[in-house]
């Protein structure tokens, strides 16, 4: 069983088996186990399972690749949609025309004339000093195309 000769090459080992009963018995047992035969179908089944698993993994890998590419494309499109308008905004501002400049004042300040009845002369009195503040003009169209209501509003919000 535990003879040191066990490790020797086969010719010497066979000689040893003739004289060592324990080693002979163990060798017979080991030979019986070595003879264990497996049906070819069992090998074929293992091969089939391995190949099927590999092919399934390949299909999964392809699916994941395409999914990742599609997701990356979606992200790129979203990023482009978000970033591109902001980069184009200054150009749009440059291209836009300035609104027409309104000449102020639209209405000449009217000097209030006070007619002095007793003297018969009219005194030209300077009207209230108006600062030439920019005025806002609000035009309101009415049903009648000949009638347009115009509001002149100073910066304080007072109508003139």
């Amino acid at each position, binding site marked *: *069983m*535990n003879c040191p000769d066990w*490790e020797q*090459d*086969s010719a010497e080992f066979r000689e040893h088996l003739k004289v060592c009963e*324990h080693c002979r*018995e*163990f060798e*017979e*047992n*080991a030979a*019986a*186990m*070595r*003879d*264990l*035969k*497996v*049906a070819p179908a*069992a*090998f074929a*089944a*293992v*091969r089939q*399972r*391995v*190949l099927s*698993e*590999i*092919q399934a993994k390949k299909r999964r890998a392809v699916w994941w690749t395409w999914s990742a590419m599609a997701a990356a494309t979606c992200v790129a499109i979203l990023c482009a949609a978000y970033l591109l308008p902001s980069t184009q905004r200054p150009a749009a501002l440059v291209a836009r025309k300035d609104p027409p400049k309104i000449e102020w004042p639209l209405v000449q300040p009217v000097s209030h004339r006070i007619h002095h009845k007793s003297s018969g002369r009219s005194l030209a009195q300077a009207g209230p000093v108006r600062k030439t503040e920019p005025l806002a003009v609000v035009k309101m169209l009415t049903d009648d195309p000949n009638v347009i209501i115009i509001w002149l509003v100073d910066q304080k919000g007072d109508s003139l």
Partner: protein
Amino acid sequence: MADFRLKAEHAGQSAGLLERVKTGDLDAFDQLMRANEKQVLGTALRLLGNLEDAQDAAQEAFLRLYKSLNRLPDIQEIRPWLYRVTVNVCNDMHRARRRRGWEPLSGPEPASTQPDPELAWVHQERGRLVEMALKTLPEKERAAVVLRDMQGLTTREVAGILGSSEVTVRSQISVARGKMKKFTDRYLRKHL
């Protein structure tokens, strides 16, 4: 004694086969499996004692081989690598399924080449007895005995596969043979 080195005339073909496998050729991988299936399934069957589990272990070992092909530069490394992986997979499965307990061989019967039916029966029963004795061994001793005595590897090769020294493997085999001898004697005394 098995030798890891392939014959020179086959080495070139095998290297070409490995290159084809590395390019994803499944037919080539099928050939590679055919060349190693007896080794893998036979070892797994002796270590696990159950054909269904052995097939699972063999499948796992071959899948690991497929994943690791790029790390194996030489086809001569495949055989010891497969032994190592098969033993590891079987140990993992054995630990995971320890609660289930050992089962008798569910698939193949130990075949015999004996022409005499009575001798064939004795041979077959002897195989069963060894199989039962193997089940009583700790996993390292069982692996050492299976690889050394049933797969026919040298002590050095077994040491390389199990990651032990040759002295350790000799000791494990010696202890394992003693245990198996005791088991078979006790079994035969009890049943005969």
